[in-house]
């Protein structure tokens, strides 16, 4: 469940936590777009480093690392599939014809797989910063002030809020099934996937049951009685927000410029 840990908000006050979520989201989206535009390892490494100052300023290094560790399995999977497919079907971009036999050709495939994996890691790393430093309440406010209907904002923030609850529940269910002799880590790959059925069914059934109960309890407290809803707090942009906004816009411009006009070398070019 450690992958959820990275998305669990903890109430702390820091420059990063107090940033406007809309601006933070824009920053993350710029990183996201950049990660998708580049497929070479050097720019992706740069993109990985970019959100690091925010992580340290917000003092969420531990949780952030934990979320990366949670993504490790998928990262390994992405690396392996890219390497295997690259080995058997080297695409035209590699300039390799025929099969792969020289060390240089191996290196090209390795680099390609590594950069695809790094792209995924960059996405996880940047989104994790966003979720680690943004309270669900702020997120809801941001959505509302971006003219998203309140019902959707509410559904969204509730979903985010319930992620840790679900993670805890999944742990209890796992314990209950282990107590009945279920061995999650036994058997071949298919058997292991099947082992998760006794975990997933109670988890889903309980989640549905809980959402129905939540709906009933909210309706009995007059949810949606007023068409026009006001908020006690309103988000306002401060100086730090403008700085981050400026940095994000500059990053976007630089990214697009590099993407259009600057040929980016692979590591092999340095060999």
């Amino acid at each position, binding site marked *: 469940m450690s992958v959820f840990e990275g998305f669990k908000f903890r109430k702390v006050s820091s420059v990063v936590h107090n940033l406007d979520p809309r601006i933070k989201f824009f920053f993350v989206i710029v990183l996201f777009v950049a990660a998708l535009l580049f497929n070479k390892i050097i720019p992706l490494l740069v993109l990985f480093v970019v959100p690091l100052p925010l992580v340290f300023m917000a003092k969420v290094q531990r949780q952030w690392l934990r979320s990366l560790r949670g993504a490790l399995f998928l990262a390994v999977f992405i690396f392996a599939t890219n390497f295997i497919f690259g080995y058997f079907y080297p695409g035209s971009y590699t300039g390799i014809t025929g099969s792969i036999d020289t060390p240089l050709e191996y290196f090209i495939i390795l680099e390609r797989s590594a950069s695809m994996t790094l792209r995924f890691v960059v996405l996880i790393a940047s989104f994790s910063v966003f979720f680690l430093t943004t309270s669900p309440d702020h997120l809801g406010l941001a959505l509302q002030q971006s003219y998203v209907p309140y019902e959707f904002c509410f559904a969204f923030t509730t979903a985010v809020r319930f992620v840790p609850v679900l993670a805890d529940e999944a742990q209890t269910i796992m*314990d209950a*099934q282990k107590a009945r*002799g279920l*061995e999650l880590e036994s058997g071949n790959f298919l058997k292991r996937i099947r082992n998760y059925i*006794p975990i997933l*069914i*109670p988890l889903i*059934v309980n989640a549905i049951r809980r959402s129905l109960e939540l709906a009933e309890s909210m309706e009995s407290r007059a949810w949606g009685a007023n068409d026009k809803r006001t908020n006690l707090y309103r988000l306002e942009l401060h100086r730090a927000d403008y700085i981050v906004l400026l940095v994000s816009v500059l990053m976007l411009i630089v990214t697009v410029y590099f993407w259009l006009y600057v040929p980016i070398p692979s590591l092999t070019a340095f060999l």
Partner: protein
Amino acid sequence: MIEVKNLHYTYASGLEALKGIDLTVEDGEFLAVMGQNGAGKTTLVKHFNGLLKPTQGEILVDGTSTCDISVAKLARKVGFVFQNPDHQLFSETVEEEISFALKNFGFKPEVIEKQVDWALNLLDVVQYKKTSPFMLSGGERKRVALASILAWDPQVIVLDEPTIGQDHQQKEKLQQFIMQLNAQKKTVVVVTHDVEFVAECNPRVILMSQGKIIAEGIAEQILAQKDLIAKASIVPPQITQIFLELADLGLPTDVIDVHEATKILLNRLRKKK
């Protein structure tokens, strides 16, 4: 026999739930673990079948450390009934639900069939054999969950809050059933808040507060000590409260059972006549 030696447990979040527990649960014993919310009761019993491993200290089940054996193997000996049956029910029928553990333990099909029928009858859910467990009422789901553990006939049975969400009649049945299990030389460990339930079963009680055992003894001794159990957010059974308030009249202060109380009062009334 379960031996707990200087058990400490700290959750990943840093919460120190158990702070040095020493305890021995003998074979065939009936033990109630009582205490306020967050006292560490469930954390303690989750060590008995190895779901949690000690941060410090050790747990020996029949001489084997729980660190050296998988939960699945230990579960064969120590059955654990979770508080909320909805955390375990997943099968299409009650029958399949009960056979789940037996299949995991590798019982033979004919044995599974026999044991499932036995457990269904034992908990009075045989009429729901082919019903989906999700269609049952709360009390019935709880009984199915219990049946799914008892089906493999474990030597030790740990029940986490068994009486919660049960109506009076079901509670009474459950109580008889638990005592019956104990009479069959099974070791029974019950985690509970329910003083009336404990008063009627009169097991050995350990009282927990803030990760420590603060008192230990038979229910009669523990439950009548108002100030002591107040530390664990427990109030004495109503009958004990009456006797404590009437202590000036020379009534005994360690009565927890209604039948015993009736006997004492009747004797007094007769003497007065």
